[in-house]
């Protein structure tokens, strides 16, 4: 029992101090009918070596992205993460610390959260950001709830290009709070039309850019219309690296910006943990969900940081809280911040340029194939192809050739156009990968 320091003689001595004769006495309040006398029917303890061997076998049963040409995006993006990042987040002092409620012994976590918030605010072009959410999709849902709270209106307009999972997560939360959501026609090139849905009952408009098809959306006209109707513009992104290449939503009139931060510092992890980013204007700060870190001074007048504005939060406000969120994605936020600190302005800008370049190259190569049509006018590192065969079949055929060739739209939007394929290229793709993909796609489509 390598994780348990008590010895049998310790246990005996301690029971003595407690004044009971056996461990069973400590469970005396449990109704007799619910007391388990035997072990549950699960394997007994195993050595580290045995557990590692078992897990290694499970791991080997999946095809890891790094082992093949890989082109999946659609909300999770594969970038190279420097070894420094993973090393630092594993330091005991970061990894095994709790939420920094005791600031005197938590300045490490708090100062990085302050840096995180500053980076997120800068990247999104917003005034302030919180200390992270679970992921982009739940951040999106929380933003819609926040818009209801702010505007006291109950209609939310979701753009056709919003990631279907984000729309679904928002729908789930909205459904119990009497927020009405429009029908979405999840097709490329439709985001402009949403302007027509905005009216005086609208609490918020939710627009993703680049959207799920990779299209870069001009948020300005939408912001204008929304604001004219006293609705908030919630801007969404799923790839944080894109924000280094496009005009930030904060400069286009967004009131709230939410998105997925995974692309910086956090691995794919089969979908989680990721890290939700949440930023808004100064005006709305006291309506934000989630934890916030702020600057202050200590008794000696030294600068320090604390969690603040906690009167928004559930552990203080209980049923009146802005959200029920408690645990956030602290360690992923740390990873984001370290990676972003390493990148800096110069690095993230170049990284974005390399991603865009890779996607442009790949789009050119693939769209030259018979039976392939590039749907996008604009894109960052992800674009949509219209194929002559159903995309799901094509992807399965590519997988048999050991190529992970993107995400069929129908995987995330079952009633979507079956011929659409979302394809992503990043700096992790080697030119050989492009050639392999091109060749294989030709074969599959021919």
């Amino acid at each position: 029992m390598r994780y348990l320091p008590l010895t049998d003689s310790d246990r005996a001595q301690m029971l003595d101090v407690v004044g009971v004769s056996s461990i069973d006495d400590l469970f005396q309040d449990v109704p007799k009918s619910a007391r388990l006398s035997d072990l549950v029917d699960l394997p007994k303890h195993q050595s580290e070596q045995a557990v590692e061997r078992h897990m290694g076998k499970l791991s080997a049963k999946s095809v890891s992205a790094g082992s093949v040409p890989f082109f999946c995006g659609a909300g999770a993006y594969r970038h190279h993460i420097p070894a420094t990042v993973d090393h630092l987040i594993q330091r005991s002092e970061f990894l095994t610390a709790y939420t920094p409620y005791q600031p005197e012994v938590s300045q490490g976590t708090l100062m990085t959260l302050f840096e995180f918030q500053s980076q997120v605010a800068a990247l999104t072009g917003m005034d302030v950001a919180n200390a992270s959410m679970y992921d982009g999709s739940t951040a999106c849902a929380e933003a819609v709830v926040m818009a209801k709270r702010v505007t006291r209106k109950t209609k939310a307009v979701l753009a056709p290009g919003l990631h279907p999972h984000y729309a679904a997560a928002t729908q789930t939360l909205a459904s119990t709070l009497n927020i009405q959501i429009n029908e979405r026609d999840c097709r490329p090139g439709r985001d402009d039309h949403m302007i027509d849905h905005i009216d005086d009952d609208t609490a918020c408009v939710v627009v993703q850019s680049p959207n799920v098809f990779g299209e870069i959306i001009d948020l300005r006209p939408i912001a204008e219309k929304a604001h004219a109707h006293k609705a908030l513009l919630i801007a969404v992104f799923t790839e944080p690296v894109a924000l280094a290449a496009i005009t930030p939503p904060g400069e286009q009139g967004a009131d709230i910006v939410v998105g997925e931060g995974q692309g910086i510092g956090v691995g794919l992890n089969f979908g989680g943990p990721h890290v939700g980013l949440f930023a808004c204007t100064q005006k709305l700060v006291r309506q934000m969900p989630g934890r916030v870190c702020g600057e202050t001074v200590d008794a000696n007048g030294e600068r320090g940081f604390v969690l603040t504005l906690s009167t928004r939060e559930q552990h203080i406000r209980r049923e009146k809280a802005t959200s029920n969120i408690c645990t956030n994605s602290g360690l992923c936020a740390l990873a984001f911040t370290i990676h972003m600190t390493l990148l800096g302005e110069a690095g993230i800008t170049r990284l974005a340029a390399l991603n865009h370049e890779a996607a442009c190259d790949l789009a050119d190569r693939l769209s030259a194939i018979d039976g392939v049509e590039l749907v996008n006018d604009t894109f960052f590192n992800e674009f949509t192809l219209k194929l002559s065969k159903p995309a799901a079949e094509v992807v399965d055929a590519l997988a048999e050739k050991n190529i992970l060739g993107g995400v069929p739209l129908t995987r995330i939007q079952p009633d979507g156009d079956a011929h659409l394929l979302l394809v992503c290229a990043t700096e992790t793709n080697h030119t050989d990968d492009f050639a392999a993909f091109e060749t294989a796609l030709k074969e599959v489509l021919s």
Partner: protein
Amino acid sequence: QAVKLIFEVGDLETTGIDLPEPKGGKSRLGANARQGTIGLPGLSEPETMRHYVRLSQKNYAIDLGVYPLGSCTMKHNPRLNEKVARMPGFADVHPLQPISTVQGALELMSELSHWLMTLCNMPAVALTPKAGAHGELCGMMAIRARLDADGQTQRRRVLVPESAHGTNPATAVQCGFTVDEIPASGDGRVNLDALKEKIASDPDTVAGIMLTNPNTCGLFERDIIEIADLIHAAGGYFYCDGANFNALVGRVRPGDLGVDAMHINLHKTFSTPHGGGGPGSGPTVLSDALKDYAPVPYVVETKEGYDLVEAVDSDSFGRMCAFHGQMGMYTRALTYMMSHGSDGLRQATEDAVLNANYVQASLSDVMTPAFGGVCMHEALFDDRFLKDTGVETLDFAKAMIDEGYHPMTMYFPLVVHGAMLIEPTESESKQELDRFIGSMRHLAEKAKAGETEMFKQAPVYAPMRRLDETQAARKPVLRWRELEDGKLAAE
């Protein structure tokens, strides 16, 4: 030595990451290509390393000492779990790869489900919730979906004990319920009479109850089966807050108590690291009554292998988030559970409860246990022993920092005056506990001896003195800003 912010060290030209030069071809960004700078400082790699290593040393951590935060369960985080979580078949797999290429990942999820369902004696588990509070949402959404499916749309009242975690009422509200608070009895448990009254007052509006067990006073709710029966009889459902499941694993199964839904904090009970505030993971077990309403996606086993049900059809209340939940936490939790095994998990529970009782017993002569008697995995004290000393719970907690400890949970649960909630967990040795007990006794005696000033000044040996939280909230400075004259300063 004060550490500067990256904004005070880095600049816009420096980078700690070498990347090849872009070739500089055409842009497909369109009219919205970024103009102007972002404002992100860069540091070289050695500067970055040093910055964060220095910062890290300003943190307390489990790996440094006892972290007795009641209700938070700060236990040992084995590094094997970290190693396993980084295996490429778990860490470097995309959530939307073809199902045939992620069979190992799905098998792991299936194994984890089996362990959780077996430990809980529950027929289903929804893995996706991303944290405890998200799990609460999951359970309450399932209850709501079931009520709606049964046409019981008038059932919107949720009973919540006043000792509940703040997430409970917040969750209930977020699911469109109203909260009806149940008072505690003198022994720190649900007041059964009050509960009956609450139900009887308007039984048709009862949606259910949200109850933590062991409760936040560290006590097992003796009447829990009766409570479950009462709720069920009234037509409601029993949501159990699983934050304290670590006091039960291997000794009591929630399914045997009448629970309809319970989230499991993998980061508390099954040792995935807290990481300074997450990520957590909150798989939620569901009873037969609720399991059809579970959120998507979920794993199913077919003849060809494992499959994922991702599309919302049938009765599912919908999707809670993008993708399939916190895979990285699943790997760690399963690794932990397999390492412990059925025997180790039970032993861990026993040790956690024994450690808490040992602390309570060893301090009961100098501090004031809130309720006395046997406790479960945490020992709750109130501030009666500080009466007339001028020392408050907060001061006492800050003085613990100077003794080399992270403070215990303070002022929670609310039902106890000046509460101090101590959860040692099973990870502490007797030697460590004895040292901790010695420090606590020392402080209690100092307080009684009138050394108030020491408490008011504390901490003095921490990286910082007491921080001014009022100022932080009154004039929130939440980010760094560059001043207009080109210099940098915090906003």
